[in-house]
């Protein structure tokens, strides 16, 4: 096994299991609780997140590498735009998703119908943002970032599908009144996060 392959294994397994974006990094909790009532809606959300994360990682890592990390010299002062990273990423990701949505509507109505309302919902989702910032902090190349983004989406999907399946089961269970609804959902989420701690140290 060469080093290159090992690096990719580390990125993929790391983000899906060890540093699961929802259950270990606690990013994207809002859609995790919001759209996990039914497995069907959860699947729609998963598709949209995978799509947007991959695309956002590609674009933001390229911007970071070729614009933000460069140091410009103007007269006598050095200017580095690294501190604008979050602002630029937010604007870029949001408009990127808008662009994709507009073009999908025309070019592929069926895909637009499947991703539907979930696309605009995650334009400024913190999980997407988190992956973009992590790409920079982990010093990943543009291609590695894209892989990282794609598997970030898979990681989110894994957590969401597990959780929504559990919540569908919970609907049938006899839950004591004070725990009904969001309370038991949060407890379940916590237990799931604790279970995922078992993966730590794997990579």
């Amino acid at each position, binding site marked *: 096994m060469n080093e290159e392959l090992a690096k990719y294994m580390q990125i993929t397994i790391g983000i899906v299991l060890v540093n699961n974006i929802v259950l270990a990094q606690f990013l994207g909790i809002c859609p995790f609780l919001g759209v996990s009532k039914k497995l069907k809606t959860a699947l729609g959300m998963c598709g949209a997140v995978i799509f947007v994360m991959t695309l956002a990682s590609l674009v933001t890592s390229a911007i970071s590498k070729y614009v933000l990390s460069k140091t*410009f010299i*103007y*007269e006598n*002062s050095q*200017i580095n*735009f690294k*501190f*604008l990273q979050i*602002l*630029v990423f937010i*604007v*870029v990701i949001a*408009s990127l998703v*808008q*662009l994709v949505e*507009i*073009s999908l*509507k*025309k*070019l592929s109505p069926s895909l637009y119908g499947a991703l*539907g*309302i979930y696309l605009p919902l995650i334009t400024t989702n913190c999980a997407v943002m988190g992956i973009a910032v992590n790409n920079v902090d982990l010093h990943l190349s543009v291609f590695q970032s894209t892989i990282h983004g794609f598997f970030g989406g898979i990681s989110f999907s894994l957590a969401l599908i597990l959780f929504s399946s559990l919540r569908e089961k919970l609907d049938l269970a006899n839950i004591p009144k004070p725990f009904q609804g969001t309370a038991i959902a949060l407890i379940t989420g916590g237990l799931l996060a604790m279970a995922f701690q078992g993966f730590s140290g794997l990579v």
Partner: protein
Amino acid sequence: MFETILFSIILMAAVCLLLGVLIGFAVKIFAVQVDPRIEEIEELLPGANCGGCGKAGCSDFAKALVAGEAMPSGCPVAGKALLEEVAKVLGVDAETGEKQIALVRCGGDRSSSSRSELYNGVNDCASAMLIAGGPKGCSYGCLGFASCARACPFNAIEMVDGLAIVHEDLCVGCGKCLTACPRDLIILRPQSAKVNVYCNSPAKGAQKRKICSVACIGCRKCFKVAEENIEMKGFLATVNYDNPPQEDIIEEAKCPTGCLSTTTTLLKKFHSHD
């Protein structure tokens, strides 16, 4: 320091301008022809995106309306005036858009129908159904555990002595109670059809008589009076909702059990007990 601030502002302005122009062009290039009524209706709708209609939000509901997949009355939030406006945009005429309201096809409260066994489980119709078909003598009538009343977002269903009765003025015809009833006892009927048969049991007359004093015993009296308004389905008379009978049919038919009645009469009867 000053340069950094200046260039940051310039950079952000440039990025935002560029992206804005890009999106602007994309909207023009990838413009999709949509029915202008969709936007018009979406503006009329409450915009709360509550999902009460079963769609993903108000814009999704507007699309379904224009596509003819939904009726304006599907929106539980909109008032009557607003629904009329929406119907006007859609071009639905008043006749096809007649308001549907729910009807519980049973008149057997605790005093007029027999109970079979004691049930002390979960207070829910579906759960009661699981245990030997429910604790009511009649296996077609209202179980009285108020599953439909809890499902109703408008509190339009009143439980009177173990019987669900729909208040005509509160019901909007959303159909949520239809799915809540495990006995498929509830149907939607046109609001103007005041006279209904409050029985759903296809069993033989004598059999029904033993367990319920307000069942349809299949005597055909109402059918003889108004053949085109009433249909006989075996031992059960049903109202033909394509051509519903007028209220005077109750006087003429002299229904021996009082099963052919109106909701107003039923409510009056039950409330006189108190």
